Structure formats: structure tokens, C-alpha cells
């Protein structure tokens, strides 16, 4: 129960990427996600791939571990590839089986799209692998700070996120406890048809929800007793500070992207 996918699984460490300010990482990844869509030839794809692999190396994480972490997404990548091969009818025919034909354009398009997809997944997984969820929350709160003026409750959203993160282990423990309790009463979660397994979830979810609501009520009371009254007039213990490596990274990233503009057609 306790092992979740490594997308979202933080690996503590002290590598270059680990030490970057989470805001730097967020901004780079956010812009990278857009930029990937502008790659349109082999050279520009290769350039971005080189960048991604350089980033992977800098995390000092084992490549196998990262690849394994994005396994759930492999399926989607392969699916995209196949879909394009089947659907696209452009360029010369490479292979013909009865009425079904594979075109060169299909292979090219499919490879490009899935390659793009893989780059996106790889780079975004680097964020969650090297940044503690709480750091991401802090970074989001600070980066989105200006939106408070538009009455977007940035602080409240960040607090909600941090409380959710804090209660994930608690709720997982509880799920395990309840599922054991229900299993000992004869509820079968593992065998039977899909329908009966879905029905078996109900006696798990109901007590879980009831207890989660009770927890929320208690927590709200405790927060009020400790003087919580919204974001106004609050100071913050957690602080983020851009350091030298952040400036260096920003400059290098900018250079890489300018180079990219020259390399694409």
C-alpha cells in the first residue's frame, strides 16, 4: 500500500539539481514544456535531448531508477507511436498488408510525437525526484504570490497542499488498517470480478471518509486554537533564497534555449 509510483517520489540527495532553488527548477520545467513543442527537426530534438540527459546526469540518480519511475507512462508513449503509425497517411508507403498500409510520414510523425512526450515526462519527473513536495509547495506559493492581487487564494491553496502532503502517510496507514479490519470480516479485495471488487471498496471508503472528516474537524479546531486566521498578517518560517548556482543555471539555460532557436527550422 505504501509504495506509490516514483512520479511524485522524492529521492533525497545533494546533487547540483537537488541544491537548486525549487523556483528555478519550476520555471525551467514550465518553460521547457512549452519549448519542446517548437522542436521541428532532428537537430533541435537532439539538442533538447542532450539538455535533458545533461540534467539527468546532474541529478546523480541512477538512470535505471528514473526510467523505471516513468514505466507507467511508457504504455502511453508506445500507444501514441502506434496510433500515429496507423492513422497518418502521408509520404511513401513502406509496408502494405492487405488494405492496411504503413506510411513513412506516419513513422516520422509518430516517432517525433512520442519522443517529445518522453522528453516532457523525463524532465518533469526530474523535478519531483529531486525536490521535496513541500519545497514545490513553497515555490508555487512564492511564484504565484502576485496573483493574490487578483483575489486568488494562493496562501490557502498552498496550505491545503501542505496539509494534504502531511496527511498522506496518516491516511495510507488508516486505509491499510481498515482494509485489514474489513478483510478479517470477510470482505475480499483481491479476487472476483471487476464489479465485485469495486463493490468491495465501498466498506473501505466509507469509514475512511468518516474518519477523514473527523480529522479535518479536529484539525480546524486545533488551528483556530493556535491563532490561525487566514493569510493576512502572517510571517513565514520557510524561506527561499536564490543562490549563485541559480543564477548560473538561469544563464546556461537561456544560452541553451537561444541555441535551440537557431537550430530549429
Amino acid at each position, binding site marked *: 500500500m505504501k509504495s506509490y509510483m516514483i512520479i511524485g517520489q522524492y529521492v533525497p540527495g545533494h546533487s547540483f539539481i537537488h541544491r537548486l532553488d525549487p523556483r528555478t527548477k519550476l520555471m525551467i520545467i514550465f518553460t521547457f514544456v512549452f519549448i519542446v513543442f517548437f522542436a521541428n527537426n532532428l537537430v533541435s530534438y537532439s539538442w533538447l535531448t542532450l539538455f535533458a540527459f545533461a540534467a539527468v546526469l546532474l541529478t546523480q540518480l541512477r538512470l535505471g531508477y528514473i526510467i523505471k519511475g516513468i514505466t507507467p507512462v511508457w504504455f502511453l508513449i508506445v500507444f501514441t507511436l502506434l496510433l500515429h503509425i496507423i492513422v497518418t497517411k502521408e509520404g511513401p508507403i513502406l509496408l502494405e498488408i492487405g488494405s492496411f498500409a504503413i506510411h513513412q510520414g506516419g513513422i516520422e510523425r509518430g516517432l517525433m510525437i512520442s519522443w517529445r512526450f518522453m522528453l516532457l515526462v523525463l524532465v518533469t519527473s526530474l523535478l519531483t525526484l529531486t525536490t521535496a513536495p*513541500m519545497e514545490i509547495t513553497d515555490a508555487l506559493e512564492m511564484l504565484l504570490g502576485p496573483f493574490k492581487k487578483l483575489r486568488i487564494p494562493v496562501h490557502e491553496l498552498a496550505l491545503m497542499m*501542505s*496539509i494534504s*502532503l*502531511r496527511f498522506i*502517510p*496518516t491516511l495510507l*496507514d488508516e486505509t491499510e488498517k481498515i482494509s485489514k479490519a474489513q478483510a478479517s470480516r470477510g470482505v475480499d479485495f483481491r479476487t472476483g470480478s471487476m464489479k465485485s471488487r469495486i463493490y468491495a471498496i465501498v466498506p473501505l471508503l466509507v469509514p475512511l471518509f468518516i474518519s477523514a472528516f*473527523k*480529522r479535518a474537524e*479536529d*484539525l480546524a*479546531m*486545533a*488551528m*483556530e*486554537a*493556535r*491563532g*490561525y*486566521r487566514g493569510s493576512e*498578517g*502572517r*510571517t*513565514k*518560517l*520557510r*524561506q527561499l533564497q536564490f543562490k549563485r548556482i541559480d543564477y548560473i543555471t538561469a544563464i546556461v539555460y537561456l544560452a541553451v534555449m537561444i541555441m535551440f532557436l537557431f537550430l530549429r527550422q
Partner: protein
Amino acid sequence: MVAIEFRDVYFRYNEDTPWVLKNFNLKIESKETVAILGHNGSGKSTIAKLANGLLMPQAGEIFIDDRKITPTNVWEIRQKIGMVFQNPENQFVGTTVRDDVAFGLENRAIAREEMLRRIQESLQQVGMEAYENHEPHHLSGGQKQRVAIASVMAIHPQVLLLDEATAMLDPRGKKEILATVLSLKEQLAITTVMITHDLQEISIADRVIVMNKGAIFKDTTTDKLFNSHQELQSIGLTIPLSVQLAIELEQYGYPFSTYPLKQEELIETLWKSHLKM
């Protein structure tokens, strides 16, 4: 000075339910250590929440440090009276120990430098300074409750109010909390109110208030409490085994000056009493 005063307080949760507190009066002097006892539903938590301004009485007045609680000053009052709740899990707000202690300080707009100093100070007071960066799910129940106490102490309150803070802990956790409360009492001149239904815990209190059906049933000192053991049993409190044994022994002619709350105390008194004979 009076730390907490309830004056003719009436409180009920709903219009159509009976009064939980009816014409309730209570005075707790500054620097006293008071235990509030009573069976489930006798109104103990209601008293705590009223004292903290989490609930407002329908009639009557409540004073903290001689200041009446009103809707406008309730935030200041909460700075004077820190509260620890029963469930260790459900009052841990931060993702780490230090974030949790910081939460109350952030709410009060304490400057960051001061915050760092106070986090150190209050974690030391409860003996949790080595766990500053630990996450809650790596802590025991007793440790979480000690962090909850530290979070409250960081605000520098005048009153520490524990509402059955040990009820969900194992014997070791209970011991940890009692030792922590005792050492705080020695280090700082602080008013301590411990709500409990565990009669073992009253050993560190100077004064014991027994609640029954929303009214004070008995207001006495710790030593004298068990002189009226029959009455206590009649309102559904369980007398600790050591006290029960002492009461039985008395009928066989072994007098006790005070009833022992712990087994060791009982043994101590017994062998000494044998020496006297």
C-alpha cells in the same frame, strides 16, 4: 491574580438540547496546577473550549487574566491560553516538527529570527530538540504530543490547558507527557490545567476539581481526594488499584495518611508502616 474565571456561565450546544453548563462558577488562581476529572460527557472539554474562546457562552462571563473574553479580543486571549488536544495526529499541522512549532508563531506574525529562537527554546523545554526536522509519521504518539506542547509553549502563554492529552497514548507516552508537564511547571511559573479521566495523572496537581453532569462535584486537594472514594465511585470514576488496596487494608487496621496513587508509593508506605509497628 486569577488565571481563569467562569462567572455564572450557561452553555449549551443547541437551543433544543439541555444545558451542558448551568450557572457554572470556577476560579483558577495564577500558577496553580489543577486537574479536572470527570466521566465522559461531564462537560470537561466544553469548559476548555469556552476558556479558549473556541465556544462562546450563552450567558455569563469568562475571564482570562482578569480580562473578559469577547468576540473582539478572543485572538489576544488565545495567546494567553494554549491548548493541547486529545488526538496527537489531528493537531499536527506542519510537515515537520519545526514547521509545526512555527505554525502558531507565523499566525502571530512573529519575526523570523525570533521564530527560530523560540522554536529551539520550546523544543528544548519538551526535550524534542533532536527531532527538529522529523516528519510526524516518524514520531510516536507521546513525541507528537510533546511537539504539540512545544507549539503551545512557543507562544509564551500564561496558561497551559491539556484536554485529555494522554488519553490516546500508551503507558510510556503517558509517562513522557506527565514528566514534560512536571518539568515545565518547575522551569516556568505557568498555570497548568490538566483535563483527564485518568486518576493516576492527578499526582502532579495541587488541586483537583471533579465534574459531574456539568457541575463541580468536588473541589479539593490531591491528597484529600480519595477520602470521599465512595462518592467518586458513585459518579462512575474508577479508583486506581493501589488506592483500592489501601482502602481495603485500612479496614484491617493499617492506616494511611494519604492514599498512594502508584504501586511504588503503596509499597513504600507499607514497609514503612510495618517499621512503625
